[in-house]
């Protein structure tokens, strides 16, 4: 009896020791930055178009495949590919909204929901048809490099991802607050009819927003690829997490997404640590339910 009690005590002591807690929290923060980037795209589209983009996950899978093949076929490092893929995916998103989703929706929000859902099915199965269900990875020399900060070894690609995600969030925030397009986007988000009356091209702004949201995915994909894998269904796992981030941070809030993403990253890391990797994501979804119950507008969202 006593032996097992001491064993349990030693076990608890080990689990709470800073050697393991500090790196786990830091890892969570770094992973969370990528979640934040995926969530940024989702929250932006929701904030302006007032629709939930069901094709977000499939587009993310497509972006990962694009980054993968840029590396495999063109020999482009994922970080360099990001420079190329971001405008490509912006145009792709712009085109999708302007020429597919917008016209097919006939001005009804409900239709947009169904169109994006259909789009997700089409994209995912096209990927499956073209590349089969195989899981692929890239092997980069620096993928396992670490920075020794004393209390922990931080993975270099994750630190880069963290930094870039912060910069992207900042740029997005600047676009929204300072530029005319950003102001137009906010105007459309607040009052679509009014925006139309003052001469804002709503169709164009919708497409720009969708393009920006999709471009975020391209960047996130390039940041993730060095430490992750690609298959046609990979995006879904991220979108579920991104939904949680968006709900936590508040629909349509850039700051909310960023902080929400990191918070979710830490929760996932810690629940993985204490509940085991097989159950690691439980923490995220428990939090999702709690937020919906007690603060449905999210931490930074406007009151519904």
């Amino acid at each position, binding site marked *: 009896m006593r032996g097992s009690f001491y064993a349990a005590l030693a*076990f608890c002591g*080990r*689990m709470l*020791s800073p*050697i*393991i807690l500090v*790196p*786990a929290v830091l*890892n969570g923060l770094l*992973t969370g930055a990528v979640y934040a980037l995926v969530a940024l795209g989702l929250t932006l589209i929701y904030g302006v178009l007032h629709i939930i983009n069901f094709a977000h996950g499939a587009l993310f899978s497509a972006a990962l495949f694009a980054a993968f093949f840029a590396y495999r076929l063109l020999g482009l490092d994922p970080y360099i590919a990001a420079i190329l893929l971001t405008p490509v995916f912006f145009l792709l998103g712009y085109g999708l909204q302007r020429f597919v989703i917008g016209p097919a929706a006939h001005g009804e929000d409900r239709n947009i929901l169904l169109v994006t859902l259909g789009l997700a099915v089409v994209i995912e199965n096209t990927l499956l048809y073209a590349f*089969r*269900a*195989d*899981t692929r*990875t890239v*092997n980069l020399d620096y993928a*396992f*490099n*670490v920075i020794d900060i004393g209390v922990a*070894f931080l*993975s270099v690609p994750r630190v880069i991802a963290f930094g870039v995600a912060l910069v992207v969030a900042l740029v997005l925030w600047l676009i929204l607050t300072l530029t005319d397009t950003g102001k137009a986007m906010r105007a459309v988000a607040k009052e679509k009819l009014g925006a139309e009356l003052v001469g804002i091209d709503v169709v164009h702004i919708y497409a720009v927003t969708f393009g920006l949201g999709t471009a975020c995915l391209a960047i996130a994909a390039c940041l993730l690829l060095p*430490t*992750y*894998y690609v298959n046609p269904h990979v995006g879904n796992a991220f979108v579920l997490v991104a939904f949680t981030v968006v709900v936590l941070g508040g629909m349509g809030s850039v700051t909310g997404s960023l902080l929400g993403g990191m918070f979710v990253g830490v929760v996932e*890391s810690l629940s*993985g*640590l204490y509940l*085991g*990797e*097989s159950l*690691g994501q439980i923490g995220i979804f428990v939090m999702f339910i709690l937020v919906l119950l007690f603060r449905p507008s999210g931490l930074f969202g406007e009151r519904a």
Partner: protein
Amino acid sequence: MTQFSRVSRRRFLQSTALIATAATTGLVNAPAVLRAQGAPVKLGVLHPVSGALSYSGQQGRLGATIAIEEINAAGGIKALGGAKIDAVLGDAQSTPEGGNAEVEKMNSAGVAAIVGGYASSICLAASQTAARYDLPYVVDVGVADNIVTRGLKNTFRFGPGFGVIAKTALDNLVALNDQAGKPAKTVMIVHEDSLFGSGLAKLLNAQLPERGFNVLETMPHPTPTRDFNNVVLKIKAANPDIVIPADYYNEYVLLARTMQQQRVRPKAIYSVLGGAASSYKFVKEFPEAAQYIMDCNHWFDPRNPKALALRKKVEAQGQFYTYEVYMNYSGVLLVADALQRAGSAERAKITAALESSTFSGHVMPYGPTKFVNGQNTGAAPANTQVLGNDIQVILPSTFATAKPVFPMPA
């Protein structure tokens, strides 16, 4: 006829209909005398060449096709008038259902026997389906013990099963530890959470304490897992003497690399059927992470010149000499030997010839071939260790090519 009582009416009708169709189209194996002298013998070569297990499947197919090419180049099956072996390739798509569908197709194509399956789950399903047609099935790798305990007359496994491998692995671990003066007492197990990893973890948890080891913690994770930071942090905090991973290739590599990244160095990384530990691919791509890792797994006989010639041939094709290659190579040779002794491509005669096989022309370090209930009792695994840029056999000592390095130098 006693069989009929156990077959459901629907299945009986199904199979009868199939056989009838096949017979009328002349596809079912006609007696050898009706064939032209030396007519090719069709052999089913079944592997998961697409999907999650595609790498292993492709390697298996490579081994089987090399064996078939060699047999044909050497004049085919002599007892059948120099009949060539005609490979009927099948893709199980990494699922048992895929395996079943291919067996049905191969049966319709009139194969004399099937070699392959790779994963335990595929072997279980495919051999069962083959049994309906009395089609001899030689399992290439699938280690689950129940593959050969179901009483299927058509199913043969040339390699060792899980029970034998696990027992050998534990005996050898104790032997290594005793030899080094018992430096290791504590163990942590990292395993993937499907049948293979969980089954092994359960067995290790039961057996290790009896052999004087203390299991500190057992950590399951799903396949695929792309982040082992938490697992490695726990290993770092608990600081066990030995880490035992039971993972498929990708996760195994990732775990080893994350341990290297986080500078976690136990006295040994010791695996049982480790997905990567005895893979030349892993050693070549990540030599530092692979260094000193030990494994108890299928391995070729390093004393056998035929095994070394095969290695040269495979490497000349730019491929890695993995266990799937030589296991399938040996499996096909086993069937060819049975064909030769049966003097016929009739399924029943091949099955009988396999049952009484004493085949010795393979490349594995096995004892005399003897099948008991379909299991080759001569089959045995070997312990290997990554040393330098190569994989060496460290146990059994009768054909070891190097001395074990244990504990790992700090």
